[in-house]
């Protein structure tokens, strides 16, 4: 038996095994060496990436450490680490809180309208711009619709508040001409959502159309020429060529948008809402702001924020998977 293990027949086998293992090890080594070489060769590119990475670490990853207070009875004096763990208590409090439930419902409703009206708006705008032949007119119109994006939300809100003002606002002046009484738009809950969603479209649709215009510009022009020879009119070309061609872009933008469903534009809500419209206007983020920063319940606010993030995460994952499955398009 002993002889058999060390005989001439066994030796090559063992040797082969060792060699195979060695070979494997060398491949792993090779990979690290290659990675190192790659860094050495391309370090300039990684250096350019650095500010972004630092930004992410400082402002997004480092604060994650503080997320644990969502499960703690946090007190500023004890600090994050020393506050005692209390499990899911904050979440129970949250879901027993009518105001929070209302905020969640408002967030979803506003987001839904945003998606329904706000998402197609830049696409339609881009398609319309694409049909404009007159170059100067096109450029002027584009500049005008891009402008609101570059104005701070504070000023945007100021303009909206002024426009809808019951005394001097242009809208109510107009309503007055028609012989009706002024409407107190910004203090009535039923007007908040239309005004908010409309403002969002006015502010962002133009700028958002740039992405779609770029996608349209990328469509092979001979597709249109071929369609012209085939007899398609502009309407048919839009439906059968332009829209299908930019569909991947539309889907990507939709996935990103769905990921932001819980992130209703917080500043604009803060600027436009008032206690009389909380009923429809108060969203999770504004609720967090009031509970966390104004009432000092940091731990409860952190729990609400974490809830927001988890929902957003699940939504993005789902949207991405669905899109990949059905259209071969996905973010990653």
């Amino acid at each position, binding site marked *: 038996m002993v002889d058999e293990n060390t005989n001439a027949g066994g030796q090559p086998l063992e040797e082969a095994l060792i060699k195979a293992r060695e070979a494997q090890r060398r491949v792993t080594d090779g990979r690290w060496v290659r990675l190192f070489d790659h860094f050495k060769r391309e370090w300039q590119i990684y250096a350019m990436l650095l500010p972004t990475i630092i930004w992410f670490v400082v402002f997004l990853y480092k604060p994650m450490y503080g997320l644990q207070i969502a499960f703690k009875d946090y007190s500023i004096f004890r600090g994050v680490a020393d506050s005692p763990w209390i499990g899911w208590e904050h979440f129970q409090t949250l879901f027993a809180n009518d105001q929070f439930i209302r905020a969640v419902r408002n967030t979803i409703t506003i987001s839904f309208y945003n998606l329904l009206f706000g998402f197609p708006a830049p696409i339609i705008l881009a398609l319309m711009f694409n049909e404009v032949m007159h170059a100067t007119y096109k450029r002027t119109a584009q500049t005008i619709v891009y402008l609101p994006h570059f104005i701070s939300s504070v000023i945007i809100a100021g303009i909206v508040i002024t426009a809808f003002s019951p005394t001097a606002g242009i809208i109510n002046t107009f309503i007055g001409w028609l012989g009706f009484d002024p409407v107190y738009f910004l203090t009535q809950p039923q007007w908040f959502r239309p005004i908010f969603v409309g403002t969002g479209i006015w502010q962002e649709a133009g700028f958002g159309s740039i992405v779609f215009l770029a996608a349209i510009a990328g469509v*092979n022009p*001979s*597709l249109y*020429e*071929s*369609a*012209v*020879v*085939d*007899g*398609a009119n502009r309407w*048919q070309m839009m439906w*059968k*060529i332009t829209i*299908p*061609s930019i*569909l991947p872009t539309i889907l990507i933008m939709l996935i990103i948008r769905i990921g932001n469903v819980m992130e209703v534009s917080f500043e604009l809500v803060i600027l436009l809402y008032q206690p009389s419209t909380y009923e429809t206007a108060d969203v999770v983020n504004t609720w967090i702001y009031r509970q966390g920063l104004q009432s000092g319940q940091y731990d409860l606010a952190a729990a609400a924020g974490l809830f927001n993030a988890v929902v957003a995460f699940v939504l993005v994952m789902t949207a991405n998977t669905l899109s990949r499955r059905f259209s071969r398009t996905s973010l990653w």
Partner: protein
Amino acid sequence: MSGVNLSGIVKAYGALQVVHGIDLTVAEKEFVVLVGPSGCGKSTTLRMIAGLEEITDGDLTIHDRRVNRVAPKDRDVAMVFQNYALYPHLNVADNMAFGLRIRKMPKAEIKTTIADVAEILGLTPYLDRRPADLSGGQRQRVAMGRAIVRHPKVFLFDEPLSNLDAKLRTQMRAEIKRLHNRLGVTSVYVTHDQVEAMTLADRIVVMNDGRIEQVGTPMELFNNPANTFVAGFLGSPPMNQMKGMLTETGAKIGDAEIKINGAVAGHAGRDVIVGIRPEHVTLSDEGQSSALPISLDLVEPLGSEALLHARHGEDTLVFKADTNGDIAHLSGVGAVHVPSHLVKLFDAETGRALNLGT
């Protein structure tokens, strides 16, 4: 009835005129190839026929109907584009059906038409595939299929094979030729590849700088180029052109003199350009020829033939010689023999072919 007729066709972009008055008649069922160097206005001319570019001046008729102001869709032409212009989001069948659906052809009819054409082009197994999942040759075939299903009066091709590799190009070239023989549709085909032009065309139109240099059958153009441009454009390698001066019996090129058939007598002293096709020379005197001394630079074997790159005085020349399976005997070549009846003469100033009454 003429298939396509262009008379005095001009194209200008603002002040820049790029096509300067083209006259051309394409007979019905004829296959005409527009050929010329890059930027000479071939595509522009084709696109004017298609209706994709406005015609600045002149008259265009298709089947004797003036179509200058007729929309592309009503001209009954189909165009095959260089980059295929397939709709990436549609499968092969839907790509081919696109034009038919736009024209509201009944569904059942669309289906049979596509099945027929797919069969002709060998695309039947691929009807469900998207263009991205096809090879270059298959995409090319789909592009042709899309044109064929429409049964147009005229096919227009803009360099349809230039995105294919050499082997596939040869194959598709033959396929286009077969299709044309089978369908017999008037075709205008643009290419800058002279081999494609020679092999496909019933007639070739050589263009240069927005003008037509010569129109004729491939062999007419090859045998009797109207000017030095055409002579230098067709044939591979192209015709050798050397400055010379006529004598009583031939032409003097540098310190050599070659005999030329025909009435050169009486023109002695005239400056000419002497044209000799690379394949017309022989290595030994076969009678009726004169020797042109050369200094050999390089021998490029091609298999049964070899290219001799050589010099005579200032001129760089290329000749073809049979290898007979070996190129050793070619390295010592010091002169080629030029058959006196195959020499071409062109005016030294205008570049036009000289016909001194042969």
